[in-house]
């Protein structure tokens, strides 16, 4: 028998082997996976609750550490996590009791009230090595955490903080770290965190992401997946291809990428209102915008719907005021400004401004650039000539700060929101001028209302205060609200994700099989 391999036979065998390999890969994907792969759009910086880099870090942190109580997925309140009891005794006193036997990983022992004290006070009250947390505002009003027993303690506030449960205790800033682990590991704790949550970090690699594995010592509800791969994928197009090829199970993507994926095999695309706020701000302290009539004219010259159509393919909902659903204190009757060229021209003429030259500063992201170009065209019709100043992150984020902020004209901005109104309101007080209040909106009345909103424990009264504060913002005409963004969640149909409204804050430990 002739056993020599002809060229034709070799090519045939290679093709068969390749198709077998590809078939094997497909069938492997079809099997029920015990791990999931999710996308984060920024690289992991520090997995330490007090020094996290942003929401991308927080999404890992929340499933590695426990909190006294965690926010419910619908954002309607808290459910107990590490605590067996959490009681608001008075506006300035909260008592807690920890469940016994909750163990930190890597042999760092049982969680005690001393760890809770350390975790909360290190933000600002008792910073380690003098390092104050950039998130110290989350714990605003905290005076002390008093340890009353191994598992019991009292959180004492110097002044009431109505947002404390939502912003701090129930969220990332409320994560409980091991005092011994943080002090012994030092900076290494950023990449080798010691928690007591559902997952533990197996590895963190620069530019790759993290691998999380089920924490066998976790006493709470067991997660559905043994392993979570958190992949840092900068380019949304790559994320799309990875979703289509089956390498990725979950990602939040921009509308332009996610929309065409509807109907893709094995994938599910869902859109929902975001929890970020995007607006066009006007510097009130820079001429000619010092005149309220000029600001009003800008507001009337713009067509928000047209701008959203250009920037978000019309997929993002319009925002008419600062606070969006489901956050407490929505101003339901907030005016919906329609474009009115004649009125805008009349206001400009009244202000003696018929040929304004100005600038709109935006971040170099497609949605902002497109919206700015539309705004430029709309403003031209009322006699305002606006240059669009597109900047990369490094220079953009500095544009409204310090002395530079005084020369800023108009800008477009996006801030991530949280489920508490005071979190959203904090950036517009006079003390934030030169920091994040780029409008240089200086209203003593607003400041008073913002402070009152933090202190007011009664939700109804608080909502009323928040609405009044928004009315103050509206009067200034320094804010042209655009949208609260839209979150496009793309997932494998076999995975059921878990996240708070807006899909910014994920609960990876609650991801389940669909």
């Amino acid at each position: 028998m002739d056993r020599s391999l002809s060229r034709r036979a070799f090519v045939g065998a290679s093709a068969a082997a390749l198709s077998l390999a590809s078939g094997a890969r497909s069938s492997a994907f079809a099997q029920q996976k015990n791990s999931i792969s999710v996308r984060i759009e920024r690289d992991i910086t520090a997995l330490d609750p007090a020094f996290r880099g942003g929401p991308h870090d927080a999404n890992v942190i929340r499933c590695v550490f426990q909190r006294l109580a965690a926010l419910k997925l619908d954002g309607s309140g808290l459910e107990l996590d590490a605590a067996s009891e959490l009681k608001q005794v008075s506006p300035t006193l909260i008592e807690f009791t920890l469940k016994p036997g909750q163990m930190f990983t890597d042999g760092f022992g049982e969680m005690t009230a001393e760890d809770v004290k350390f975790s909360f006070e290190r933000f600002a009250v008792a910073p380690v090595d003098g390092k104050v947390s950039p998130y110290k505002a989350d714990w605003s009003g905290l005076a002390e955490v008093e340890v009353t027993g191994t598992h019991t303690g009292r959180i004492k506030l110097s002044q009431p903080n109505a947002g404390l449960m939502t912003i701090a205790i129930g969220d990332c800033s409320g994560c409980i770290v091991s005092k011994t682990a943080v002090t012994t590991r030092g900076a290494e704790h950023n990449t080798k965190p010691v928690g007591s949550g559902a997952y533990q970090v197996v590895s963190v690699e620069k530019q790759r992401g993290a691998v999380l594995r089920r924490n066998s010592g976790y006493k709470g509800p067991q997660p559905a997946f043994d392993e979570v791969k958190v992949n840092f994928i900068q380019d949304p197009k790559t994320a799309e291809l990875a979703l289509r090829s089956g390498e990725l199970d979950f990602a939040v993507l921009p509308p332009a990428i996610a929309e065409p994926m509807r109907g893709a095999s094995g994938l599910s695309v869902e859109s929902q209102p975001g929890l970020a706020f995007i607006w066009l701000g006007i510097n009130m302290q820079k001429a000619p915008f010092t005149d309220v009539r000029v600001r009003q004219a800008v507001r009337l010259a713009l067509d928000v719907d047209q701008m959203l159509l250009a920037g978000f393919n019309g997929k993002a909902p319009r925002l008419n005021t600062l606070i969006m659903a489901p956050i407490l204190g929505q101003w339901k009757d907030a005016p919906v400004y329609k474009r009115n060229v004649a009125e805008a021209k009349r206001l400009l003429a009244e202000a003696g401004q018929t040929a304004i030259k100005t600038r709109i500063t935006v971040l170099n992201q497609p949605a902002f650039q497109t919206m700015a170009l539309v705004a430029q065209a709309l403003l031209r019709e009322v006699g305002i000539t606006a240059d669009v100043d597109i900047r990369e992150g490094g220079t953009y984020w500095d544009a409204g700060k310090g002395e530079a902020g005084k020369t800023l004209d108009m800008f477009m901005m996006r801030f991530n929101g949280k489920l508490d109104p005071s979190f959203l309101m904090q950036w517009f007080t006079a003390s934030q001028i030169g920091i994040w209040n780029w409008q240089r909106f200086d209203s003593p009345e607003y400041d008073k209302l913002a402070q009152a909103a933090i202190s007011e424990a009664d939700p109804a009264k608080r909502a009323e205060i928040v609405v009044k504060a928004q009315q103050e913002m509206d009067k200034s005409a320094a804010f042209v609200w655009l949208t609260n963004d839209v979150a496009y969640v793309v997932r494998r149909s076999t995975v059921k994700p878990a996240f708070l409204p807006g899909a910014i804050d994920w609960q990876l430990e609650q991801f389940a099989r669909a």
Partner: protein
Amino acid sequence: MSETAHYVASRLATTALIVLGAMLLLFALSALVPGDPATALLGPSATPEYAKRFIMEMGLDQPWYRRLFTFLGNVLLGNLGTDVLSGRPVTRVVADVLPYTFILTFTAIGLAVAIGVPLGCYAATHRGSVLDHVFAFVSVAFIAIPAFVIAIFLLLIFAIWLNWLPVLGAGEEGNWLDQAKRLILPTIALSVGWIGFIARLVRSSMLETMGENFIRLSRAYGLPGRLVTYKYALKNACIPTLAVLGMGVGRLLGGAVLIEIVFARPGLGRLMFDAISTRNFPVLQGAVLVVVLIFVLTNLLVDISYAAIDPRIRRQGSR
């Protein structure tokens, strides 16, 4: 001192000056770059006191020339500084991504040489043939199409349509097969332009060399055509190609950033891109230093190798 040793010593001295010059330029330029690093790195969460501390930890409250001296002093002790955001030493941060850059750069250059040189040789020895014209067309097309466009097409064909190769990342640690599979598409995407470039370069160098007197003399002596083409002509034609490859390695070390982004692969290019975007100067300085060092050392090796090929260069260098 031998000619070669003298040549290497003079090149090493030049290398040290180049590194110093590059770092001087980087520090001077970084002082001119607008944007507050603390804000760029921390975003809205940056409280003024935290931002101030950040600036101090990065040494940005010092004049740039003082920072440069401190940096160079630390470099001599093997310390590239600390990434203030993660608290990790920059040496570790760079060392984490360096292997990925190395492997991608050298496989891409290797593939480009393996395909580009034979194509160039064939085109030179079959000048005016149909295949010569075809190679010319394909080479120019390869050079003209940006690598990231090729990358997207490769992904669509091999990862989505055929489902043969993966899309993401660099593969699981310790799993060589997985890592090799994830290297195929980025390597092809990165090398395509270089294949075209090397093919054109080898062709023109070969044609030039084959018209020289020593080749005519070799033929007149009746040496076999293959020997003349592949031993004498190709060897001489390799010198400009080697010089270009040296530059190519340098460009790919830091310049594969788009490919690294498209394939979500770690790498020095991405590291530097992220560092400059966020004004993370300690990481940027460390990464640039490493890239410059590798670049000049690669070019030193190239210089030495073509001095070995052509004794005339060695003699010129030692003078």
